[in-house]
């Protein structure tokens, strides 16, 4: 819209110039021609001719302009002699070299602006992505210093197979500590975890997440009990148990708090423990954690972002 307006201005100026030339020519040749009186009220918006004689001449040479316009094919001038004179020209009327030179200048300017703009955008984008990478590296460094999940746990899974932390290198892991006799929190959290894994599974572009459940109650949660328990959740969920010491070691790695409550008559007890879901990346590095307040969507979104960031590095 702006360009057409500019073109309009230029065109008008050139139209004006052309008209002035035509006016001179017309004045010379056809001064004596008279036109009906009602044309005295001609009004020209651009050329400011208001008095009678020139209005007559203006009116007359409009036909000259019309003819030249037809030849050049660019200046659309009203044919009916005048209620008002508003030549509308887009881009160029008049001597060809002047018009072309101006057009060339415009094109050059536009091209230069675009190139400079592209250059600046490229430079900015490069600097921005460098900064993002640096921030990401800093965060990874900080997490390394926190050193959560550094140790190598060695536990037995719910099928009786021995597993260590190394076995899960190369995979994204979602880890939850709990126990099978848990009244409501562990089932809720495991349901949430299963939903997160299922939702991420749907996206084939993303690597698969391995859900793990490590017990904080090894005395009761032996292999068979775990096998029964994990059946109710995601099919890929692996339950892990071991001796008291092995389990405590794994808990220590993740600074998991766990404390068995008093036993009742049946020997039943509840284990108070940290309720967190831990995210571990394929390098075995602890990346993030999610508490009870985080919804399934929030967790899925966070994991997707971590995965994208991981690939970039």
């Amino acid at each position, binding site marked *: 819209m702006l360009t057409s307006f500019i073109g309009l201005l230029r065109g008008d100026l050139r139209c004006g110039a052309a008209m002035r030339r035509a006016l001179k020519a017309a004045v010379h040749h056809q001064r004596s021609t008279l036109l009906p009186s009602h044309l005295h009220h001609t009004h020209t918006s651009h050329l400011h001719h208001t008095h009678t004689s020139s209005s007559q001449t203006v009116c007359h040479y409009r036909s000259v302009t019309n003819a030249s316009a037809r030849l050049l094919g660019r200046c659309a001038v009203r044919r009916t002699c005048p209620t008002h004179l508003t030549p509308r020209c887009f881009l160029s009327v008049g001597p060809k070299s002047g018009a072309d030179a101006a057009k060339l200048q415009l094109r050059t300017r536009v091209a230069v602006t675009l190139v400079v703009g592209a250059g600046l955008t490229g430079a900015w984008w490069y600097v921005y992505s460098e900064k993002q990478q640096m921030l990401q590296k800093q965060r990874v460094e900080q997490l390394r210093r926190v050193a959560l999940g550094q140790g190598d746990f060695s536990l037995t899974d719910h099928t009786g197979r021995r597993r260590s932390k190394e076995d899960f290198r190369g995979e994204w892991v979602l880890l939850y500590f709990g126990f*099978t*006799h848990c*009244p*409501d929190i562990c*089932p809720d959290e495991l349901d949430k975890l299963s939903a997160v894994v299922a939702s991420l599974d749907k996206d084939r572009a993303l690597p698969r997440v391995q859900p793990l459940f490590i017990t904080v109650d090894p005395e*009761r949660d032996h292999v068979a*009990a775990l096998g*029964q*328990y994990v059946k*109710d959740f995601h099919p890929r969920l692996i339950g892990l148990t071991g001796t008291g010491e092995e389990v405590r070691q794994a808990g220590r790695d993740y600074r998991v708090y766990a404390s068995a409550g008093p036993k*009742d*008559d*049946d*020997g*039943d*007890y*509840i284990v108070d423990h940290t309720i967190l879901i831990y995210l571990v990346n394929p390098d075995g590095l602890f990346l993030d954690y999610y508490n009870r307040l985080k919804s399934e969507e929030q967790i899925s979104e966070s994991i997707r972002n971590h995965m994208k960031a991981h690939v970039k590095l």
Partner: protein
Amino acid sequence: MAAPNSAQRKACWGARDDLWKCLDDNKDQTGPCESFQKQFESSCPAQWVKYFAKRRDYLKYKDKMEAEGFSPAEGPKQGS
């Protein structure tokens, strides 16, 4: 004693929800809710019964705090 499986958990939670609804309707009077209480106790392990009772107390307390606000307890009185 094996842990409750998924079906047993759900049965226990259902009984608990029924009991709590009854208590809510009756302004926490245990009298009208005797049958629900018995049902709840038979559906859930003893530990869970105790746990859920404590949980209900906690939730009621939390609602009260949110609704009425609280006044901080006075600290130990300074000497003289």
